[in-house]
């Protein structure tokens, strides 16, 4: 029976937020043609407004209680997906805010930038909602292609070019591996649907080596996306070369999306073989924490240091995946939210140091910041202590939950490794604090200040402190969001 148009539009309700984000992105591309170079920031604000509206839509969907699998079970609208979508809105919103002024300084203030960011965000949203390997892959590629371009956005800068092409090549390679793994899984289960795969596994021979191979391939490719060692090689170069605002966005959004997929695929669809995946996740976690934390020590460039730090943080989150179970999943979800906010904040301060003629990317550039700009230094202090995981900052609560679920799952050795590596991490985070507060300023320099950047920092620092002191609300939200998944 042919549908009327209003009915058809009504059926699309579950995917309204995605449509809105994509629609705003397309509108930005069009508006870009009529916007003078001086006023490109308006497009950014427009994009931000779009993100906020999508957030409102998502919240309305949550409150409306619309849930389930749609469009031939390829698209899931459940609390889990909604949780991650909200995290993506936050990281995209903060990403836009920290970009506005920075793009002008780098002279790359073009409309496409914001459009690409929104496309990437819509890809991530699709990833979180994917109920099928195909829709998952579509979302992933939409996100990845947008971010490749963003990484190489400074097209006159050779480092940015290198970042873009390196990310593209390695990303394509990992996508290939992922597709191979997916095809093996399809060959076994006869379906690409995640729930279908789950019901297949419940009755299947779990010792099948092909199943193991498929699982390992998926793990490798997702490991690449979340920057887990030993698939992390691209991270330092890409993070260093990409425009800092893109690095900030990349370290939060796509990484969190990667974890959303890891949780959905490995804890839900591949749940029956969690004993195997847990072992591999444990090894991956230890290696990732080791590489990230140890390599970060010797870095002199703040972006490279934060790149290794983001590898290390992926390692902590992997501990939660190894633990598994409702608490393991919820701990990862809480962690990625906290991580996204505090990391964005730290990058926000790094962006403040970038001025025409001054790169502001060396750790020594922070020397004396505690004297020349007290507010910026104090914010950085809070973000760095939060990244280290010192209470009463949010980073501690995130790590605490991760290690708590590890101990609960009997992985005490993994928790011990985790806390020891986070003690190692104190060394390189403190080095920046030392530069800021315990060295004399090398040169007088006024920092870049803009209302947008100030807003982004205010939002992140408030979140870091509030979640650090009273995590109950966010924690309950994360725990409530796994119902239906596990």
């Amino acid at each position, binding site marked *: 029976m042919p549908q009327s148009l209003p009915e058809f539009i009504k059926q699309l309700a579950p995917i309204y937020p995605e449509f809105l984000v994509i629609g705003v992105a397309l509108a930005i591309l069009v508006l870009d043609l009529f916007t003078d170079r001086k006023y490109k920031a308006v497009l950014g604000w427009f994009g931000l407004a779009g993100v906020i509206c999508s957030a409102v839509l998502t919240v309305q969907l949550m409150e409306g209680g619309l849930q389930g699998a749609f469009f031939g079970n390829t698209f899931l609208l459940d609390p889990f997906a909604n949780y991650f979508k909200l995290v993506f809105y936050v990281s995209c919103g903060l990403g836009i805010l920290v970009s506005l002024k920075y793009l002008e300084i780098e002279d790359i203030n073009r409309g496409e930038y914001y459009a690409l960011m929104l496309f990437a965000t819509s890809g991530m949203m699709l990833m979180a909602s994917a109920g099928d390997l195909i829709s998952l892959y579509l979302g992933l590629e939409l996100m990845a292609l947008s971010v490749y371009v963003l990484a190489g956005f400074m097209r006159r800068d050779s480092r940015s070019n290198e970042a873009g092409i390196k990310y593209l090549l390695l990303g394509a390679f990992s996508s290939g591996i992922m597709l191979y793994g997916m095809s093996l899984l399809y060959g076994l289960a006869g379906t690409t649907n995640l729930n279908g795969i789950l019901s297949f596994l419940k009755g299947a021979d779990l010792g099948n080596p092909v199943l193991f191979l498929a699982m390992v391939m998926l793990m490798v490719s997702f490991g690449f996306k979340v920057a887990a060692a030993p698939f992390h090689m691209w991270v330092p170069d890409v993070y260093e070369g990409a425009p800092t605002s893109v690095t900030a966005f990349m370290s939060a959004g796509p990484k969190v999306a990667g974890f959303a997929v890891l949780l959905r695929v490995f804890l839900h669809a591949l749940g029956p073989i969690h004993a195997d995946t847990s072992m591999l996740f444990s090894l991956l976690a230890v290696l990732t924490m080791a590489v990230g934390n140890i390599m970060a020590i010797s870095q002199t460039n703040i972006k490279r240091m934060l790149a290794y730090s983001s590898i290390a943080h992926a390692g902590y989150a992997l501990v939660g995946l190894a633990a598994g179970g409702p608490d393991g999943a919820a701990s990862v979800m809480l962690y990625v939210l906290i991580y996204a906010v505090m990391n964005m904040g730290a990058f926000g301060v790094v962006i403040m140091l970038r001025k025409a003629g001054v790169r502001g990317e060396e750790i020594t550039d922070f020397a004396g910041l*505690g*004297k020349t700009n007290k507010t910026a230094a104090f914010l950085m202090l809070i973000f760095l*202590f939060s990244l280290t995981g*010192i*209470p*009463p900052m949010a980073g*501690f609560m995130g790590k*605490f939950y991760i*290690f*708590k679920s590890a*101990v*609960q799952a009997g992985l*005490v050795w993994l*928790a*011990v490794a985790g*806390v*020891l590596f*986070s*003690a190692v991490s*104190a*060394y390189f985070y*403190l080095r920046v*604090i*030392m530069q800021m*507060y*315990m060295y004399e300023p090398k040169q007088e320099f006024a920092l870049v200040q803009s209302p947008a950047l100030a807003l982004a920092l205010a939002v992140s620092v408030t979140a870091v402190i509030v979640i650090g002191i*009273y*995590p*109950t609300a966010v*924690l*309950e939200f994360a*725990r409530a969001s796994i119902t239906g998944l596990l």
Partner: protein
Amino acid sequence: MLELIPNQLGFPLLSLLIFVPVAGGMLLLAVRDARAARWIALLFSLFEVALCIPLLTEFNRAVPHMQFGESVAWIKDWNIHYRIGVDGISVLFVALTALLTTISILVSWTAIQDRVREFMIAMLLLEAGMIGVFVALDLFLFYIFWEAMLIPMYLLIGIWGGPNRLYAAIKFFLYTLVGSVLMLVAILAVYFTAGGTFDVLALMNHQFGRTFQLWAFAAFFAAFAVKVPMFPFHTWLPDAHVEAPTAGSIILAGILIKMGAYGFLRFSLPLFPDAAIAWTPAIMVLSVVAVIYGAYMAFAQTDFKKLIAYSSVSHMGFVTLGIFALNSQGVEGGLLQMINHGISTGALFLAVGVIYERTHTRMIADYGGIAAKVPVYATFLMIITLSSIGLPGTNGFIGEFSILLGAFQYKAVYAVIASIGIILGAGYMLWLYQRVAFGTVTNPHNEHLQDMNLREVVAALPLVVLVFWIGLYPNAAFSIMHASTENLIRHVHAKSQALPAAAPVVGTVTGN
């Protein structure tokens, strides 16, 4: 069976003690003027001292229970509560913290000229953290304060410290952090083993398995032994003490390193009594090694502060010796000696700070014969030196004597070796005093040395009073702690015997 007696005062005394300094720190954020910052910090710290008056007068000495208790659900999903209270073990530390913080702010009045406001904020937040550690009765809450305190202390050493402050600050931070995070894992293990609670009082009644106890005790030991610091985990202390500003040294010696020993009393002993008894021989050996080694090292120092730092290692060896004797004389002596050490070493660092502010040298060789020039200062230093040695009539004597009694009951040989430490202590302290104060003035810079001014005398006076008060009337302190320490000892022995498979308990405890 310890209980949490709810606070009956009509105002949340302990919460005020924790959060008044935090409020002071917040207020200081809005203050630009250095002079105003000093006064505000002083007023807030004095208010803390005032709060300690009801704390001590309303404290019921007859019962071992946790008093002035407050309990509010904090993170429900993890069964975490904001649960605080004090008993005879912790109440004196709270008061000492308030007193030493005020004194530290006074001695920093002119010594700190750079970033005064930030310095005062760090001091007040540090005070809040330290009081929080002593009153927390929820393991999670305790850990939050324990770790959070690292931040202001790290900044105090790193920003306002001496020439080698960067090294000292990061060493301090990393040493303590590594120990603490291991304790965090143990806290989690305790939580799950005991069925999902962080409530310290409930955990005290939970019977943990012997193997579990041994591991958990080891992990807690990592945190506490670094903090005490016990030999061989002490190497951060001389660096941190020497480089820290005077106020930092006073707090570090007076309060911070007591937290390790406090942790043993509050958590390690009552939670893991079997492990404590099993580990006792090793800890006793480490304690006497610390006593002798610290004293021996103190002899070799040319730096005033470093000498005191090593003497702290020696004195804290006494404290752990007393605690792990696991009898009432030992534990009470250890507890009292912690307070004493806080008073006398705090005062010693104050003395160094006073003279350093005038001469800008900490080398002992740069002094000599200053007694004639600065009589008030020399008298103050003399009293403190004698207190540190443990001369009868001063507080140090009571504590050390009680510890030796306890150690003797455990095994005579430890008491004998520790007594040698007392003799060595008298040696290096008197020698120090002789080199600094007596003889003729050898350094021409000291010819016109100014004596202590009124502010410094006011800062020093409470400590001098306490030296004699506790020295002449030790019951003032003992009566406060007695009920709680007795209960602790009884609890440890009863609980360790309650375990059926109490395999060979090493080192039987005599006494009682």
